């Protein structure tokens, strides 16, 4: 196991925890999380693309996504924790948890991939 695996895995968990806490806070205050989700998704996607192209010359990112099993593991944990708090975060909050955790761990993956770790 490399530092890369630990880093991507823990980033996913930290992102889930942050997303659930915030989604719960938004839900409790009646603030729609959709607008911030869209802004965040766009920002993360832009950052993902920028990172991929800036860290290494174009075309040298070998794996855009982590391995299938690793992705499924991270997704499964996100879905499981999201479902546990479904009542408190709502359906949109649940999707926010999935999206936020995926994007943050994917950025971590791309950074490691980009620097050739």
């Amino acid at each position, binding site marked *: 196991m490399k530092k890369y695996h630990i880093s991507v895995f823990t*980033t996913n968990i*930290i992102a889930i*925890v*942050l997303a659930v806490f915030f989604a719960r806070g938004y839900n409790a205050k009646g603030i729609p999380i959709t607008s911030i989700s869209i802004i965040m998704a766009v*920002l993360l996607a832009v950052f993902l693309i920028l990172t991929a192209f800036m860290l290494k010359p174009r075309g040298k990112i070998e794996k855009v996504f982590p391995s299938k099993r690793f992705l499924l593991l991270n997704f499964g944990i996100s879905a499981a924790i999201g479902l546990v708090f479904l009542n408190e975060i709502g359906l949109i909050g649940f999707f926010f948890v999935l999206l*936020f955790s995926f994007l943050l761990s994917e950025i971590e993956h791309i950074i490691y991939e980009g620097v050739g770790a």
Partner: protein
Amino acid sequence: MSIFQFSLAQIPAAVSAILGFIANNPILCGALFLSYALFYAYAFIHNKAVDSDIYEVDLISSGVSSIMVALLLIGIDESSKSLGFSLDLGSPKGKVAVFLLAYAAVMIFMAFTKMLPGFLVVIFGNSELDLFVNFVAILMIEPSIAITGTLLAVIGVPLILLLAIQRLRRLAH
């Protein structure tokens, strides 16, 4: 008490507020601390690893997560249902968000330009600071918890000690 005020007499209350928060959110706090514990366990086993194995990773990671936390903090005070959201610089959350955005911008800039000396990478890109930022951000959502200098010190001092111990352990090898 404000974010800059520290009082020794308030330490028990701050500790009890943190413990109460953890007790009320055992799954999420457990997951948060376990994820950092896992990272430390790895660092403990692979003690020979240098402080920043890959220069860019630590700084960019800190920068990205800080931007996200800042945006979420701004959004939680937002009542508008439109796509845009405004920043209230008068609120504690707004101030913290601005600080985090500035910190993130500097970190990302430094990561790409590689201008920052190695020891500053360790100070700004370490896991302890990341845990501090994330945990304080989570506490800020909880209306019953007032963020004071004492509370920040109660969280920050053990993390600074942890950082120092990690550094000394590595220097010893």
